[in-house]
């Protein structure tokens, strides 16, 4: 992406931001879709930050061991699903708070990933290949910008699929009823706890794959600083998207663009403000959170059982 900005002068910045939006947004997209499923069922999983890091580590390790990055992606998903399952099971205990369990899983996942990832810092694992969509253009910058990873396309397909599944499938109805009112769900004969545990597990699976994207595509290596808050940002993004999968897609692209601003400007030689621009996604998230919340009303579209938005 740093190459994308060179040669076009300052016009390189918007192009790099666009390219970055596509590249950086994928983990946001996958994590937010996973969290969207979890929150639709009435629970919040802040632990996805830890799941993301564990997924990145497991994906990199499995890719290194097997030689196939797609086995890495699968391994990341499975590890994520296991952590999601842990969250779902522990939250089902009486009096255990989902936000507190999420914080603990965030720290547990981070610590475990740092421990198990220590031998993975040096070796180079096979990474995911991108599909070149820019062949029609002569400009190498545009070609570089349109290198699109299959996981991004899978994310888009999933967003569309979930959009219809939430509205038009039995499974979507069950999820929404459980998330909106436990009593109504029981009256309809839905089993509340298994539904929530399942939703959290699927959410963890998707977040784990989002982590694999980080270590196997962009930035494309394993290090302890790989994720700093992307998991949390994705959780906020779901609120911003009002629990709508398609809006999660647009919001992810917006955040990807904000995240690409720092590196893009750095490639233009603006190194002094680098750290400041790195804060851009967090500032944007906070501003969005402030703008979407209000003290005296519940958010439109919010699942009724969600502790996050209840006052």
């Amino acid at each position, binding site marked *: 992406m740093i190459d994308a900005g060179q040669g076009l002068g300052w016009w390189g910045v918007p192009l790099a931001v666009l390219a970055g939006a596509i590249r950086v947004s994928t983990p946001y997209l996958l994590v937010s879709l996973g969290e969207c499923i979890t929150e639709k069922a009435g629970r919040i999983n*802040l632990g996805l930050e830890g799941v993301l890091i564990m997924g990145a580590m497991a994906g990199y390790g499995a890719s290194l061991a097997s030689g196939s990055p797609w086995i890495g992606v699968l391994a990341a998903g499975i590890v994520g699903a296991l952590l999601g399952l*842990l969250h779902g099971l*522990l939250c089902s*205990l*009486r*009096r*255990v*708070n989902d*936000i*507190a*369990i999420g*914080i*603990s*899983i965030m*720290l*547990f*996942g*981070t*610590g*475990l990933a*740092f*421990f198990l990832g*220590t031998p993975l810092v040096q070796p180079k694992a096979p990474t995911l290949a991108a599909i070149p969509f820019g062949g029609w253009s002569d400009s190498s910058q545009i070609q570089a910008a349109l290198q699109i990873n299959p996981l991004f396309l899978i994310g888009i397909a999933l967003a569309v699929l979930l959009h219809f599944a939430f509205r038009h499938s039995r499974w979507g109805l069950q999820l929404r009823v459980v998330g909106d009112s436990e009593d109504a769900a029981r009256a309809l004969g839905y089993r509340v706890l298994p539904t929530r545990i399942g939703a959290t597990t699927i959410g963890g699976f998707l977040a784990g794959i989002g982590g694999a994207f980080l270590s196997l595509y962009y930035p494309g290596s394993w290090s302890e600083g790989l994720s*700093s*808050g992307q998991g*949390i*940002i994705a*959780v*906020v993004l779901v609120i911003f998207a009002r629990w709508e999968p398609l809006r999660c897609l647009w919001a992810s692209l917006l955040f990807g663009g904000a995240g690409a601003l720092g590196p893009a400007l750095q490639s233009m030689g603006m190194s*002094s*403000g*680098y*750290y*400041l621009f*790195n*804060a851009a996604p*967090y*500032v944007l*998230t*906070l501003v969005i*959170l*402030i703008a979407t*919340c*209000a*003290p*005296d009303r519940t958010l439109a579209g919010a699942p009724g059982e969600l*502790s*996050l*938005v*209840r*006052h």
Partner: protein
Amino acid sequence: MTAGHVGLSFSGNIYMSTAQTTRWSALAESVGIPTAAMLLAMLLFAGFVLAVGQSPLEVFSLLYQGGFGSAFAWQNTLLRAAPLILTGLAVALPAQAGMVIIGGEGALALGALLAAVAAQVLTGLPPLVVQLGMLLAGALCGATWIGLSGWLRYYRGVNETMSSLLLSYIGIALLNYFVEGPLKDPASLNKPSTRPIGDVNMIGNLPGLEVHYGLVIGAVLALAAWIVLRFTTIGFALRTVGGNPRAAQMAGLRVGSWIVGAAAAGGAAAGLAGAIEVAAVQGSANADVIAGYGYAGILVAFIARQNPLAVLPVSVLIGGINAAGGMLQRRLDMPDATVLVLQGIAFVVIIASETLIGRSYFRRSPAATVPVGAQSEAGG
């Protein structure tokens, strides 16, 4: 958990005869359950150690030696406990008003930055003035930062857990920006830092020890917080605000001020921790102050069940585990993150053990049943 205490004090008035036993069983529970949870966490960690091919006995014996086995180890432990007491309070104080604040790391970073700035502004004045100025600047900065989270929660309905974590990331980014940019000392080549605060302005060590006065500051503040919360109406007001904001409003409490105040008090503690790291350990603000004390403080507060007094021994315990990490690395060649795994396991088990509160062996009397509705409010 906060709401649980409120419920207990009400029921105590009605059932006078059971009030005494309830108090004792509550104490037994608040000590017994976390202790049992920590033992279970140790057991799970032993399983993990076995799985990665090390001997649990050896690891535990090194953890003990590295944390508590010698005078040197104790000093090392207390040096780490000093910031943990304050970052633990940064979580425990807002928790009194029902908030889960996890932004201590960023408040610590900004407290460190502002303390270094204060030292530059006040340079040339008597050392005591410079030191007090640094501590005050750090505390005020942290209070503003996390107070903002409280303000956003009450006046904008923004979840304080997420806003404080986002503010934390922003605070860390600001520290990095200033120490690598506008405030960078040109002489600091390998490790970008602000200008040194000067040896005369450093906070010294306790007599006869290699442990700085920051430990005393933390201990005094924790004790003071416990006394205020336990023996004055402030504690009761905060618990009421946290347990049932509407009832608190009806009772004439200015809920918004209490919420913002509790968050700011927590932020001040974290900011103070950052200022002390600069004034007593680093000698300038740099990226080394971001050492995870803010996150470990969350664990400290939850093990201590948000009790400021219990924060003291728990900080020493976690500080000891952290101090022993280096020894595990040297002797067994285990990664730095080994202690993070132990802390992570402990954290998950501690939170899950909340489920036992109120229905354990100690607590059978009908007076102790807490209204179900009150519990869901406790964490959120």
